[in-house]
């Protein structure tokens, strides 16, 4: 077994897209019932990147009820649903299998950026994703809390990637600009194999390292000083992940507690996300009952002085075997509809820049919301596919290393049968073993399992099967240990979460991403329900105390709710207390995809 080995370029591209295909568990769905019964209409399913699902839902509703949806043979009914760009790209290449898990086969695909379509076509050797007409734009920016940006001279002084790197490498951190209370410089960026923002930021940092704004070459990426520059940027990363909303939600949650400045100093996001955040809607989609609340500390968008890249949101009508001529014709009606000035006004209302020149750029793309309609003034050229693949390859080597403890529930309920025929534990073991391949060979990974009444272990509630150490040296041991598990007794959730956290904090490594992946299918069940509330309160206090402040040593607990009976509320709270993320695998069949998404944080 090898972990994150040097691989051929083509293999990496396939692997990268595969990882992406499995990602985004927290934001993905098929078309929901909210669109109602399409009746006898020609149904046009549309897979869209997550940040624009709210907009497309509204546009589809408007279209479905309009005269434009009426055709000679009846009517057209558009149903958008959220799908991560990289995930959809791989599914198209694969012929979009398992629609019940992956969502229905789309007629229209709108990834965040056109580059994903190029990747699909290159991999298939034919044009399955014809060049689509962009229908809205949003540039990549570096979002920073306003006081931090001001400390760097914003808005009068241009700020670039070089400034970010300099600050990230300064051992004094924010103290070097007079703010020791903010601690070290902490950067949030998503995994470029999954996220367009992460990919664009990674491209931009290589451009910054070369001093170029176009013509990036494979040779450039191999220069030692370029590699060092990239490694320096990555060293400041808090963690990675599949979607930018994780960072924005965490920032927003810490803003409530007044600790947002010590969670992250800067996050690479699309400009639209800065607007959403400042309007009190950090993930861009209001849940039922959710009321927008302006943050105490607003974000501002930094447009890197070296230039930036755009997400152009193409409208692609797929040339796939599952798309009929009638569906293609119907899709064109919706394509024309979204380009109309009145609908481009809606695009603007959702924080995107319209692609129709007759709609002037106006509020909410305004200084009042932390963004500058007169920026960016420079762009970076999208590299050739060959260089793009090399960027991903280089990132895999230069990204920040991780120190991760896997904590798996082996309680009795894990022995329940899953729909596939095996037990829930069987599925989880397979997924965990597969996910080991997603680590870098120099990452440190360990394994605990937990249940009550364990025999022959120092603590009867958990067992350290493999200590945290370099996975390249102990991958086989981890596989064997995971594979040997079987369902046992109760679920001492609170006790073990606390113990695992304390263990990881004791050996905290500031040069790595320190994290716990905690999977459970049940509620706290240690045989004594009387102290559950106190145990939970103590646990949350312990986690928060260790995660906040300028001198904090953050150990992030990424939680997975496994199966229908998991205590999702508690697991979300644990993740939130450590500014990590919670993942939903309530359908055990999705556990492979969820594990991959979790590991994308490293």
């Amino acid at each position: 077994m090898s972990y994150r080995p040097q691989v051929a370029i083509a293999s990496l591209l396939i692997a990268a897209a595969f990882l992406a295909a499995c990602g985004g568990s927290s934001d993905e769905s098929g078309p929901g019932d909210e669109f109602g019964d399409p009746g006898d209409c020609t149904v046009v399913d549309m897979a869209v990147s997550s940040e624009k699902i709210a907009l497309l839902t509204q546009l589809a509703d408007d279209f479905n009820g309009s005269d434009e949806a009426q055709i000679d043979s009846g009517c057209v009914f558009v149903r958008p649903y959220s799908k991560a760009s990289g995930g959809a790209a791989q599914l198209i290449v694969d012929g979009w299998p398992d629609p019940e898990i992956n969502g229905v086969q789309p007629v229209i695909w709108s990834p965040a950026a056109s580059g994903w379509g190029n990747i699909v076509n290159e991999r298939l050797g034919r044009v399955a994703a014809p060049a689509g007409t962009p229908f809205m734009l949003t540039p990549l920016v570096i979002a920073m809390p306003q006081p931090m940006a001001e400390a760097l001279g914003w808005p009068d002084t241009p700020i670039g990637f070089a400034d970010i790197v300099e600050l990230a490498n300064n051992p004094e951190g924010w103290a070097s600009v007079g703010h020791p209370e903010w601690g070290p410089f902490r950067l949030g960026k998503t995994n470029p194999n999954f996220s367009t923002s992460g990919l664009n930021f990674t491209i931009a940092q290589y451009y910054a390292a070369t001093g170029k704004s176009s013509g990036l070459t494979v040779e450039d990426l191999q220069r030692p000083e370029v590699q060092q520059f990239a490694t320096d940027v990555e060293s400041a990363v808090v963690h990675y992940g599949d979607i930018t909303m994780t960072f924005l939600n965490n920032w927003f949650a810490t803003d409530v507690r007044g600790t947002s400045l010590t969670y992250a100093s800067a996050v690479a996001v699309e400009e639209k996300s800065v607007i959403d955040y400042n309007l009190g809607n950090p993930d861009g989609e209001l849940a039922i009952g959710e009321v927008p609340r302006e943050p105490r500390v607003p974000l501002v968008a930094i447009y890197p002085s070296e230039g930036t890249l755009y997400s152009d949101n193409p409208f692609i009508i797929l040339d796939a075997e599952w798309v009929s001529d009638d569906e293609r014709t119907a899709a064109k009606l919706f394509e024309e509809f979204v380009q109309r000035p009145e609908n481009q006004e809606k695009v603007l209302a959702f924080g995107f820049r319209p692609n129709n020149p007759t709609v002037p750029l106006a509020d909410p793309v305004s200084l009042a919301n932390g963004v500058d309609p007169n920026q960016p003034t420079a762009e970076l050229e999208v590299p050739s596919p060959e260089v793009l693949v090399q960027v991903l390859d280089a990132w895999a080597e230069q990204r920040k290393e991780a120190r991760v403890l896997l904590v798996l529930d082996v309680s009795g309920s894990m022995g329940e049968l899953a729909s596939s025929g095996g037990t829930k534990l069987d599925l989880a073991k397979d997924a965990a073993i597969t996910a080991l391949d997603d680590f870098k060979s120099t990452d440190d990974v360990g394994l605990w399992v937990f249940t009550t009444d364990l025999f022959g272990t120092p603590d009867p509630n958990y067992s350290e099967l493999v200590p945290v150490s370099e996975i390249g040296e102990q991958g086989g041991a981890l596989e064997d240990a995971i594979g040997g598990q079987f369902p046992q007794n109760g679920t001492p959730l609170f006790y073990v979460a606390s113990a695992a956290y304390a263990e990881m904090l004791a050996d905290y490594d500031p040069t790595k991403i320190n994290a716990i992946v905690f999977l459970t299918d049940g509620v706290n069940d240690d045989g004594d329900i009387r102290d559950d509330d106190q145990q939970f309160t103590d646990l949350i206090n312990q986690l928060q105390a260790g995660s906040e402040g300028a001198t904090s040593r953050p150990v992030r607990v990424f939680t997975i709710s496994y199966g229908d009976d998991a205590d999702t509320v508690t697991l979300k709270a644990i993740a939130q207390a450590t500014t990590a993320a919670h993942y939903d695998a309530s359908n055990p069949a999705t556990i492979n995809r969820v594990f991959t998404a979790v590991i994308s944080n490293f």
Partner: protein
Amino acid sequence: MIVVKRLAALGVAVGLIVGALFARDRWIEGDDSGDNRADAASVLVCASELAAICNQVAADYPEVTVRADNVGDSLTDLDDDELWFTFTPFPEIITQTRERSRLPERIYTTVPVASSNVVLVAFPDRTAVLAGTCGDPVAWRCLGEQAGNDWSDIGGDPTWRDVRPAFAPLSSGIGRLGVASAVSGYFGDAPINPNDPSFTSWARPLARAVPTTALSSGTAIATIEVRPSSLDVAVGAASELSANGSARFAVTSVSMNTRVDLVLATPSGVGAPSGLAAALTTASLAAGWLAPGATGATGDPPDANTVLVTSQVWEDLT
């Protein structure tokens, strides 16, 4: 006998009336093209850049199916009975190309709809710097020589970085007309010689300064309006610039003054619905184009041979 004569006269009169009505329905009201033997066409193909204009008139012609296609595609894919709302000289190019390929003859009758000129669109500060070096109208030779150089070399702000002129893609009519203007402007009165090494050296940086994939709004002028960071100097038709854009950007003429003519082209044997050309003119004027023959649009459109040659040259360069 008198009765017979009267009946005969009546028959002749009825025949004349019926004939007149038939002639009006078939040849007069159904005619914008001058072809008075034709059936009314049921499909109107619009150049993609003109789709918004077509959409404006479509509601008034429910019997006509309106479709938008790139000019580059229409040159090969247009059917015998389809009307075409396009630019001069593309109908003539189809006629010539089919003749050379020994395909069945197709002759178009064109009705002028609206006009404009090939121009440069840029932020006013860049326009001023460019005019200071390349004149006003801007000399194509000079613009090509500056492509890819630093703006600061000609007195611009160093933060503007490279001079990045951009043309619409060759798949579009606007793109082909802009390229025809540029290449003709380089050669001036001399015949176009695509193999001239000096020309190649001049044209390469101009053609490659901005990849067409960066033109997310289709044409260079539409893109500079919504995404000005992607290019510096947009080549296109003056009428493309929206009212919003007119307030933000400056428009400059170029040394080879090239008129852009919109026409409704009708293939022989087919008639255009009554009033369609006039309706297209009304919608075009509302969209900022000039009336045919208006004093604002000067110069001449390029001929078919020039567009064919210059498009091929540019395609080879990019």
